[in-house]
């Protein structure tokens, strides 16, 4: 039996802000390709969203929470910079304390990194592991970077199982970058110097081309493409450069905004909820370099998606809020200290 994804779960906060509201409030919109974004309520954060996604994955999983050997958690916006957010998640998911917990961050790339690490853990130790990517990146509401930022979480149970969605190949790139999407220690808000140098496209193309070459895959053998999508338009641009059909692209960004580390994992879930068994999914994430992965859809993911609420159902159950509600619920109006 192969090691792979045996169950998945998603969580998207109910709150939705139509980006038309942002345009009306600020007189402009930096991400016109994003129609709506999801945002956390006053009592939600990457920890609570991660727990809910994790619970859905476990409800669908052939392995119980107590069987998990590790949880890999990715976020760029956890409530604590020190004190592991993942330990809270682990305590909420399982009563067992005999579990390895790893927290990853630093860039939106962390989500796919957590999935890869969970896969590698499971393949090395023949034990099930969980990967959770949950994020609600935040910038100052007066900055254009903030317009498209959303929130969501994706969780995967990885283990040896009949019909698992298996990892076929990985290609990783690392580059030094300056001035794009960073947050210094102690700062609350993301910054971007808007240097107009497209590091993203170069790294992603390089990683995907390396992956396809190494694994001898051609684009025609790829059924779905999940690409980094901070603005609702990037995947189409990359697909054009690759020569891939835009119909193969899967991204939730136009519907729920840029969910940071959860964005690409949520795109993968969209693929797992759509494809037939045997189809190939190419998944690539970005953050000072890129990780490109290819997965072969398995029966287990089809069984998984038939239990409980579908991703589409979760996406449809949003509740439209005003920009005023957005500012309040997101905590921008709470005076600290």
């Amino acid at each position, binding site marked *: 039996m192969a090691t792979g994804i045996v169950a998945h779960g998603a969580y998207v906060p109910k709150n939705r802000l139509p980006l038309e509201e942002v345009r009306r409030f600020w007189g402009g919109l930096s991400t016109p390709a994003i129609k709506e974004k999801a945002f956390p*309520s006053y009592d939600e954060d990457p920890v*609570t969203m991660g727990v809910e996604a994790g619970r859905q994955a476990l409800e669908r999983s052939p392995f119980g929470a107590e069987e998990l050997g590790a949880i890999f958690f990715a976020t760029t916006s956890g*409530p604590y910079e020190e004190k592991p957010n993942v330990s809270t998640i682990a305590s909420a998911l399982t009563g067992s304390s005999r579990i390895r917990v790893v927290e990853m961050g630093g860039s939106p790339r962390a989500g796919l990194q957590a999935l890869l690490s969970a896969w590698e853990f499971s393949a090395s130790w023949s034990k099930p592991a969980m990967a959770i990517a949950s994020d609600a990146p935040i910038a100052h509401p007066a900055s254009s970077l903030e317009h498209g930022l959303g929130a969501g979480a994706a969780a995967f149970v990885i283990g040896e199982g009949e019909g698992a969605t298996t990892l076929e190949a990985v290609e990783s790139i690392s580059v030094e970058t300056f001035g794009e999407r960073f947050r210094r220690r102690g700062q609350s808000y993301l910054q971007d110097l808007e240097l107009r140098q497209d590091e993203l496209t170069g790294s992603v193309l390089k990683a995907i081309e390396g992956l396809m070459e190494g694994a001898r895959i051609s684009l025609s053998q790829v059924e779905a493409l999940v690409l980094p999508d901070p603005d609702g338009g990037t995947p189409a641009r990359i697909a054009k450069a690759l020569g891939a059909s835009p119909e193969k692209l899967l991204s939730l960004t136009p519907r729920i905004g840029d969910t940071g580390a959860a964005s690409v994992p949520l795109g993968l879930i969209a693929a797992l909820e759509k494809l037939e068994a045997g189809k190939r999914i190419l998944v690539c994430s970005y953050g000072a370099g890129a990780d490109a992965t290819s997965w072969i859809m398995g029966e287990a993911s089809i069984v998984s998606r038939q239990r409980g*609420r579908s991703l589409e159902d979760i996406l449809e159950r949003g509740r439209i809020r005003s920009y005023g509600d957005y500012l309040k619920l997101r905590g921008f109006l709470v005076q600290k200290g």
Partner: protein
Amino acid sequence: MSSYVSLPIFASTLRERYRLEEPRCRSCGTLNVPARMACIECGRGDFDWEKLTGRGRVFTYTVIARGGAPTEFDEQQIMSGSLVVAIVELEEGAKVVAQLTDCDPEEVRVGSPLKAVFRKLYDQEGVVRYGYKFVMDEERE
């Protein structure tokens, strides 16, 4: 100066607040929520802990106007305005008190189906307190 639940005491209830595990009396079968030293029904003290489904129904509820909640919830009330609190009758029989979240107060009724979710309760001393709240269960009537 006021009522206060210290962190170690809060931590002693994590099993309940985080995972909704509660003790069932070995002598009389009564589920004790929140956990007790002695069974609420028969007074004996041997329990088996079980994980609850988190499903329940509104037994009674209220919508507390802004500023009416305990001070732990001051920051929440800046963000949420009013807050909804309910006594929830759990599927397993016991009742608990909890906030209802993500809900339109106009839609809540005695008897509305609920399910437990994991949320932030409040933030004090720089430490986030998490625990269960309930949302309307859209998959049940």
